[in-house]
């Protein structure tokens, strides 16, 4: 196994942290970004302060990672926020902020790291979408739109950079036991659970495992796909 330089945005908690730890345990060189510049329990992992809504912040963060670890070869674009609310009551900022962080943020980071991947003729980008991006979710018009947008972004990048041996894929988690899920109401959580054929919440490490596979050599012929990891929720 070749040790890769892996960047996980929003790697300070939840799916991002579980993913960072998994790559680190497998022997890769891992950096995470977080708005606060801090992460709990991130031993051996480089934590870099970064706000994905700010291009300068993104460029500075990636430059720091390149200096300390080397060219980023695997990008896990996971940084994201929610600002839930019913559409009729949702203000412009709530919609725009979520698009800016979740979708445009992913674009900013991808644009910056792809240069190094192009030169190295090898790259893996995994964008963390959501079942909400596939099937929508009441009260999450902004979040769902941003997560659906990642699918179009990933596929476009997959086509643009395929000639450079760079694959881009989307993982769409279902309800995963993390802080972000706990921000939903009990009713919302139970509603999601009731439509999960496997009848349980997923664990962050189960998402991390799917990401690890897509970033591996074994997944070299997979690009432009959407992989739901959702207990069957989105199969329809």
């Amino acid at each position: 196994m070749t040790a890769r330089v892996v960047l996980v945005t929003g790697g300070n908690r939840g799916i991002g942290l579980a993913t960072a730890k998994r790559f680190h345990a497998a022997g890769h060189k891992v950096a995470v970004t977080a708005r606060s510049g801090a992460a709990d329990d991130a031993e051996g992992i480089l934590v870099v302060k970064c706000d994905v809504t700010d291009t300068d912040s993104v460029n500075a963060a990636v430059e720091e990672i390149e200096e300390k670890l080397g060219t980023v070869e695997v990008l896990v674009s996971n940084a994201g926020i929610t600002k839930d609310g019913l559409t009729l009551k949702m203000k412009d900022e709530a919609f725009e902020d979520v698009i800016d962080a979740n979708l445009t943020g992913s674009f900013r980071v991808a644009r910056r790291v792809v240069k190094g991947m192009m030169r190295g003729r090898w790259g893996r980008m995994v964008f963390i979408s959501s079942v909400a991006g596939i099937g929508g979710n009441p009260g999450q018009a902004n979040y769902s739109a941003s997560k659906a947008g990642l699918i179009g972004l990933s596929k476009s990048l997959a086509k643009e950079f395929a000639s450079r041996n760079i694959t881009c894929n989307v993982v769409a988690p279902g309800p995963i036991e993390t802080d972000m899920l706990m921000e939903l109401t009990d009713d919302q959580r139970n509603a999601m659970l009731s439509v999960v054929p496997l009848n349980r919440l997923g664990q962050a490490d189960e998402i991390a495992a799917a990401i690890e596979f897509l970033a591996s050599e074994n997944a070299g012929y997979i690009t432009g796909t959407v992989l739901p990891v959702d207990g069957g929720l989105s199969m329809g």
Partner: protein
Amino acid sequence: MSDNFDRFKKCAVDVLSVEDSQIVADATFESLDADSLDLVELVMALEEEFDVNVEEEELEGVSTIGAAFDLITAKL
């Protein structure tokens, strides 16, 4: 002048994976098997090498090595 062209050639050889001898003024990017992504990569390498900035629009119509070289040297 020729010193600049040598530096230019080195970038082109690196990025386009071609022979030094293929980098001549009237060689088209098409003949060098360079696609639009190659051109962007070449321009990025040239921006770094010569410390200049090239906007997207300026690349329009730049289809030969000579044209690309002129574009860069005009900024020095």
